[in-house]
């Protein structure tokens, strides 16, 4: 039976509940698998937050993935801090029953942690991997929360304690995991960021196109039909009614006696009058002002773990197909692949004695494959890599766009020969899965002869546009 442990914070308060406690630097000496959740005293929430950060930045998945529950006296702390824990217990009403209740509530998380492969000796140093595991362990949809405490304006509370100031930002890490098909993003909102410092705290201001001052007055124009007099509304106001300064008639009904044809801005600094104010954006953080079109617009998303991500979180990133393929064949980066392509195209054009081909391969239902393979993924992908290795040659250049899309420059290979080779690869891959798993992965293949006129970007984009899902 697992039980909660209080982690001592730096504050002078005594431990408020009758629960075993441990100092943060003594955690490693505990039998952590018996810990149900960490209790952190949040009466001085800044101290509690430091403790939480230390827990989440621990390298052992048994420690940093373990649920955390806050002990709180009041709710007077920022919402994103509260949401960084798995839950909170009110100090006023805390008793054994509540503590027990939380043990059972967090049990699915603990169960998932204890079933991780090599969990005892694992040391997760990759921050992206820690993020992936933390999200997966909670089986949650990671929702952004607005905040005024971070320049980004949005935080993913549970991830915040993972990141020290020098780490890559949370949003960049999530984007990376999404690009690797480990997370799936869903649109939540859009936000504007300062092009200089990345702050979301921007002040959109109407300003004078002449002197750039934002000290503007705005007024409606009133047109009195009878005498054609036009002036600002303030000129017509006469007590509680409107009266024309020109003919002194009372304006009774809009649309009958008068209308409001437009609005006019007046600069209180330079006296310029205009209708089309210049919109400027001032950053609260760095103080710089720029035009709105120069700001960076980012899509804010919620994230859930994909099938590939689930597999990677459980068995490690080493189990990903691209990692295995990389160790067998050496995958080049997309940039290096572009360089090789241009060299090859120039060589073919220069000597006109040989032909090379560009093969584009996509595994259509790779997600299904990961779900089906589970813990066997690493083993099966090793066999898959062996097939790639047997069909492709040392001189072929291969790159992966992600887990499911691969591009290959097949040097000194005519288009027909390339077709034959890739067909062989397809047959072997299908046979591998059919014989071992009774599963037929769908492969989409396209082959193009390389010449100097070929626009690699366009060719790849066309392939992705036509086939990628």
């Amino acid at each position, binding site marked *: 039976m697992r039980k909660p442990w209080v982690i001592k914070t730096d504050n002078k308060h005594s431990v408020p509940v009758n629960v075993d406690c441990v100092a943060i630097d003594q955690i490693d000496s505990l039998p952590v698998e018996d810990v149900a959740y960490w209790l952190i005293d949040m009466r001085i929430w800044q101290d509690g937050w430091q403790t939480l950060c230390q827990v989440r930045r621990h390298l052992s998945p048994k420690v940093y993935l373990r649920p955390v529950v806050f002990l709180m006296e009041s709710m007077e702390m920022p919402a994103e801090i509260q949401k960084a824990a798995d839950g909170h217990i009110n100090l006023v009403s805390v008793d054994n029953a509540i503590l027990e209740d939380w043990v059972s509530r967090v049990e699915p998380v603990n169960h998932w942690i204890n079933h991780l492969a090599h969990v005892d000796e694992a040391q997760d140093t990759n921050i992206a991997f820690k993020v992936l595991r933390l999200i997966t362990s909670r089986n949650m949809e990671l929702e952004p929360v607005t905040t005024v405490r971070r320049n980004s304006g949005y935080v993913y509370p549970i991830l915040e304690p993972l990141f020290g100031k020098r780490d890559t930002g949370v949003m960049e890490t999530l984007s990376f995991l999404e690009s690797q098909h480990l997370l799936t993003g869903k649109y939540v909102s859009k936000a504007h960021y300062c092009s200089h410092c990345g702050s979301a705290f921007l002040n959109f201001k109407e300003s004078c*196109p002449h002197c750039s001052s934002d000290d503007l007055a705005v007024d409606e124009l009133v047109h009195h039909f009878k005498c054609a007099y036009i002036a600002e509304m303030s000129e017509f106001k006469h007590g509680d009614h409107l009266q024309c300064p020109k003919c002194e008639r009372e304006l009774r009904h809009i649309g009958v006696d008068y209308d409001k044809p437009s609005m006019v801005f007046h600069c209180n600094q330079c006296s310029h009058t205009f209708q089309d104010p210049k919109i400027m954006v001032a950053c609260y953080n760095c103080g710089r002002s720029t035009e709105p079109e120069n700001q960076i617009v980012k899509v804010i998303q919620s994230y859930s773990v994909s099938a590939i991500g689930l597999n990677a979180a459980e068995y490690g990133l080493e189990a990903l197909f691209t990692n295995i393929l990389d160790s067998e064949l050496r995958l080049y980066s997309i940039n290096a692949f572009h360089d090789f392509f241009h060299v090859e195209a120039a060589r073919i054009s220069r000597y006109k004695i040989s032909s090379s081909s560009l093969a584009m391969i996509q595994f259509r239902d790779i997600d299904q494959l990961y779900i089906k393979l589970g813990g066997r993924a690493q083993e099966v992908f090793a066999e898959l890599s062996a097939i790639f290795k047997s069909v492709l040659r040392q001189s072929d250049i291969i790159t992966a766009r992600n887990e499911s899309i691969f591009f290959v420059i097949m040097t000194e290979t005519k288009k027909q020969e390339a077709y034959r080779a890739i067909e062989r690869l397809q047959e072997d891959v299908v046979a591998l899965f059919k014989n071992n798993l009774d599963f037929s992965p769908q492969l989409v293949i396209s082959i193009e002869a390389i010449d100097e006129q070929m626009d690699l970007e366009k060719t790849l984009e066309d392939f992705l546009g036509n086939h990628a899902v």
Partner: protein
Amino acid sequence: MPFEGVINFVNGLSAGQILAYFWPFFLLDMTRYLFLDVIVILIYIPKRILNKARFLNARKRLYKELPLISVIVPGKNEGKHIPRLAYSLDNQTYKNIELIVVDDGSDDNTATICRELERKGKIQCFIRNEVRGGKASAANTALKYSNGKYVIHIDADSHLAYDAVETILLPFYMNPNIGAVGGDVRVANAEETFATRMQAIEYLKSISTGRTISSELNILRIIAGAHGAFRRDVLDRLYGWDVGPGLDGDITLKIRKLGFRVVHEPMAICYTNVPTTFWRLAKQRFRWDRSMVRFRVRKHRDVLFPSAQFNFANFMATAENIFFNIILDIKWCIYFIQMVVFYPDQLEYIFIINYFLYLMANILEFVVACALLHLSLRPRDYFLAVFIPLIPFYTGLFLRIVRTYAYLMEFLYGASYMDKWNPWKVSRIAKREKL
């Protein structure tokens, strides 16, 4: 031979018969337009030469003071003309100018063009009224946001000669009692069609020469909306323009009623685009002529009657206008009936001789215009002389028919209150209030 017949007919006429046959020409048109033109111009040209020192002194004072001049341009769907107008202001000899353009509810790309010019600094203030309010309200909007000591009202489809702003301001520095100065208006698109050529000749006669003479006689009754300069304090006293059509004639008379002089400056030149077809021209004149009845006969008829504010010059300006333009318009009916009833056998000769008389009068008027404006005329303006033989038909038939129809429609139905030139909401109030 008809020509011999005409000669014989003329030779056989006594002085009494000449008057009986051709009284409209000899008693009215020749006296009012030809003789008066020649006499006044013969006085005006030497006077202008003698006043050269006064003009130079006025110019010196203008440049010493260097007041801000507001050029206001109200208009609807006139965006395509604005760049040319803005660049013509950029090239003025006088530089302290602000250009204020008011878009009166355009439904084309006027706003886009003007905003771009505003960004480039060619327009100092651009106001777009999303809801159309009519020309007067647009002009008043521009006036509201103008800051100049003098305000020059220009039609959007016009542009200025390089020294027009400077020249139109000089009369203000020669006579402190001048409240408004009318600039000369010439036809910018004279070469475009036959109709525009006819109007180019007409403008030289009736605006350049006619208004100079009216100005000299102190009976000038209109400062054209296309090109007119106003003292700002005068416009402020009047709270700007009243509901049109014919708002330019209306405000001129209101300025006169305040006791200010209004003059015409023929050397301050504005080029404006005129209607290119006779049908469009007829519609334009129909509007202009109706406003004569609406404003002279109805709104400002008080100047014709004795009162504490009675002013002889204002009386003459209105009375001359009503007499020669409106009352004498019926003389053609009387004359036509007289000829058909009493001289049916001589109709052919009478028509030919009338044509000849009016042709000679038009040639002489063209010569007078050339003498008055020769320094500012372009070579192509002189070539318009080729078309003078057609002018008697243009003024004597076409314009007269349009004018007569306009007067009738205005007297009988108040047609100006139904003109689409104003939005219906404004016309409705104008009719109800008998404005």
